[in-house]
């Protein structure tokens, strides 16, 4: 006989405000959280997974209401609780870890004080004991040099350390239930692996029930005991991790798993001796932040002696963690920022020494696809204008540009009627297609994709990757593909360059890199990719 569940959610239904895309954010969701068990709630954006978490914390926004259903916690229904009741429960019995540790911590308070505040809020312990306790907590979550770090401010910590501090705060009052809302999404892979291990260890030693919200099946495979798959606010499948990942029953779960890119690179055709499409030689870029009158300047080396070349029709991947300088390299290559030293050569033209109109003319040969599909399209211009602006600027006849725009939209799989609509009427994946059409409008030779699929859900990500691959072969494009996701890189790149602190530490054929990584940093990155122990991907 199992022990009683710590939390039992039954037929929970949360109504969205009128005029939304659907009536209920969460519709008839039931699942249990048991002590000593990690339940992963998986789903794509808009599936209602965060709403579940917020309902469990009593943090639903005013505009939505829990209309029906119960959440049983320690034998009573907590849905109708008032603010005082919640205040007593939150932090003490149910705690939460948020996605973005920088915004979840108060930037003006020392880490130790923020931990001590947890006890203060519930009127526990004396100030002295609180201080000692926060030191213990810092030690327990593995923060280095705890005495120093409790006196530090959030901005002085790394992303991983901040998330550790958040976890320490959540654990301070020994809650029975921990709700973690995408706690590792904002972190680098190596840090993510450490945080996942920490949550797992703490959960075991304290016998907590953990509700872990994520969109990443790799993470699910590493951490989950049970899995709940949500889609449009409804549970499509739930069961043990082995069952859901191993023998998914519902077609949606199968489709999601099939969309997860495999970490094993597919066989790629050798490109032989082709001409170089673009060559970067010895790029250097240092950012200098002026320190004012009495402080020294702060310098960050974003790129140091970065050299690579891309053959015609080849995809070169640039992988690395945040702050490794890969986005800076992308911007150096398209000359959005100026290099301190070094050259970028397209064919026989040196892009780095061009100015003014000459530069504008050559720009059409190298185009960029941006990361954020919501920020990369001007909200006040119609899609047709967004795509045809470029060709018109290069002297194309507006009528011709319109026709071309229609062809491009068809090419990226959108309806030509999209021309008359504004970007906000499209989903993230569709917007990214528009971004691709804009880049292709100028018939470039080289595409630079800066984290072009990182902001998309897995199923959409797979579609956009297929589209890029297909376009590349059909139009004979070369591509510089920047990503932090090694699974994606494995699928799309011919060669991969690994960057660390502004330096390319290893550059090899994809298959060779995955089979025999030479540099210690590459090995570390590969080892940290989640979900390698169990098979998560059904693709290939």
């Amino acid at each position, binding site marked *: 006989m199992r022990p009683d569940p710590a939390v039992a959610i039954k037929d929970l239904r949360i109504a969205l405000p009128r005029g939304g895309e659907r009536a209920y954010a969460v519709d008839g969701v039931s699942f249990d959280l048991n002590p000593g068990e990690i339940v992963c709630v998986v789903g794509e954006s808009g599936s209602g997974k965060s709403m579940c978490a917020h309902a469990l914390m009593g943090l639903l926004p005013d505009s939505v209401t829990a209309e029906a259903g119960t959440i049983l916690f320690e034998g009573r229904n907590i849905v109708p609780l008032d603010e005082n009741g919640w205040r007593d429960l939150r932090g003490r019995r149910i705690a939460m870890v948020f996605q973005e540790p920088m915004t979840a911590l108060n930037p003006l308070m020392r880490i130790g004080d923020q931990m001590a505040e947890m006890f203060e809020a519930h009127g526990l312990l004396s100030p002295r004991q609180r201080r000692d306790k926060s030191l213990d907590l810092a030690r327990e979550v593995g923060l280095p040099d705890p005495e120093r770090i409790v006196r530090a401010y959030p901005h002085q910590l790394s992303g991983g350390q901040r998330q550790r501090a958040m976890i320490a705060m959540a654990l301070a009052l020994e809650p029975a239930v921990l709700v973690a809302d995408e706690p590792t999404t904002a972190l680098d892979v190596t840090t993510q692996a450490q945080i996942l291990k920490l949550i797992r260890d703490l959960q075991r030693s304290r016998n907590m029930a953990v509700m872990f919200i994520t969109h990443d099946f790799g993470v699910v495979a590493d951490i989950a005991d049970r899995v709940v798959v949500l889609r449009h606010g409804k549970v499509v499948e739930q069961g043990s991790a082995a069952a859901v990942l191993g023998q998914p029953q519902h077609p949606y779960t199968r489709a999601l798993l099939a969309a997860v890119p495999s970490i094993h690179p597919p066989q790629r055709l050798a490109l032989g001796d082709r001409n170089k499409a673009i060559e970067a030689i010895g790029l250097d870029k240092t950012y200098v932040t002026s320190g004012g009158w009495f402080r020294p300047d702060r310098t960050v080396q974003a790129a140091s002696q970065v050299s690579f070349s891309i053959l015609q029709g080849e995809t070169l991947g640039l992988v690395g963690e945040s702050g490794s300088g890969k986005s800076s390299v992308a911007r150096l290559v398209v000359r959005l920022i100026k290099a301190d030293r070094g050259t970028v050569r397209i064919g026989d033209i040196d892009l780095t020494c061009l100015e003014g109109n000459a530069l504008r003319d050559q720009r059409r040969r190298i185009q960029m696809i941006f990361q954020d599909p919501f920020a990369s399209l001007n909200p006040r*211009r119609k899609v047709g204008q967004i795509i045809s602006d470029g060709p018109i600027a290069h002297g194309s006849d507006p009528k011709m540009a319109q026709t071309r725009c229609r062809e491009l939209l068809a090419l990226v799989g959108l309806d030509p009627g999209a021309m008359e609509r504004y970007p906000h009427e499209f989903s993230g994946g569709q917007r990214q297609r528009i971004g691709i059409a804009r880049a292709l409008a100028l018939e470039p030779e080289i595409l630079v994709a800066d984290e072009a699929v990182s902001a998309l859900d897995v199923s959409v990500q797979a579609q956009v990757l297929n589209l890029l691959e297909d376009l590349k072969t059909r139009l004979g494009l070369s591509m510089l593909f920047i990503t932090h996701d090694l699974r994606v890189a494995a699928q799309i790149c011919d060669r991969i360059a690994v960057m660390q602190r502004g330096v390319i530490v290893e550059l090899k054929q994809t298959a060779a890199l995955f089979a025999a990584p030479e540099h210690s940093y590459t090995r570390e990155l590969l080892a940290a990719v989640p979900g390698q122990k169990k098979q998560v991907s059904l693709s290939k």
Partner: protein
Amino acid sequence: MMRFLRQLMRNPSGLIGLIIVVTAIAIALFGPLIFPTSPWRMVQRPFLPPFALSAVPLGTDALGRDVFAGIIYGARVSLLVGLVSTLAALAVGIPLGAVAGYFGGRIDDALMRFTEFFQTIPSFALAIVLVAILQPSIYSIVASIAIVSWPPVARLVRGEVLSLRSREYVQAAIVTGQTHRWIIWHEVLPNALSPVIVLASLMIATAILLESSLSFLGLGDPNLISWGYMVGAGRTVIRQAWWITVFPGLAILLSVLGLNLVGEGLNDALNPRLARDGR
């Protein structure tokens, strides 16, 4: 556009403001057609109290001139000065701010120091000096009000442009080879405009007050009657004939209040975060 108007309507204070402003504009446009008598003409005995004769409902001033006619004709001057000087201030402030914010660096430094030069001088003092030097006329009043009120516009636009400049769609426009002018005009400015519209509606109110203050001090256009002039002229006899100052004063109060309410309503309607939030 219709959706935007509906947003504005939903806010009751904004609606009241809009009604006041529309009424004021209607009076300025059509009032003189209905009351063709010149406000300078003496129509009755001096110091006739209000509500005594239906021909002069708001009484007469020290020279026997109709106060009601003065208010109607004064609306033209006050609103015109408010509108034109604000447009002139926008015409200076928006390009300066946009150029400073877009190009940054030394251009930004130079333009912003220039702006600060105007901001450090008390604006009313500067306006008085300018009008006094240029001789009081409707043109010099409009010019001086515009000169003292463009710096906040430039600052606001610069700030907006500075944050929009690093947006990905602006970078995308650079990569596709657009010229700087095109990018500022098509990509940056349209997205920076909503706070400017709000500021502009409040600036019209400030300009009306400035004009009134100048006229009150006797620096108004001697050929045109304005509310400020009427308040100024009546202040010496305020104890014997309160109506000469109170009614034009009320006119100023109402139109400025109306414009402020419209500005606030616009702010709520144009600010997507406030408009949609349930809280």
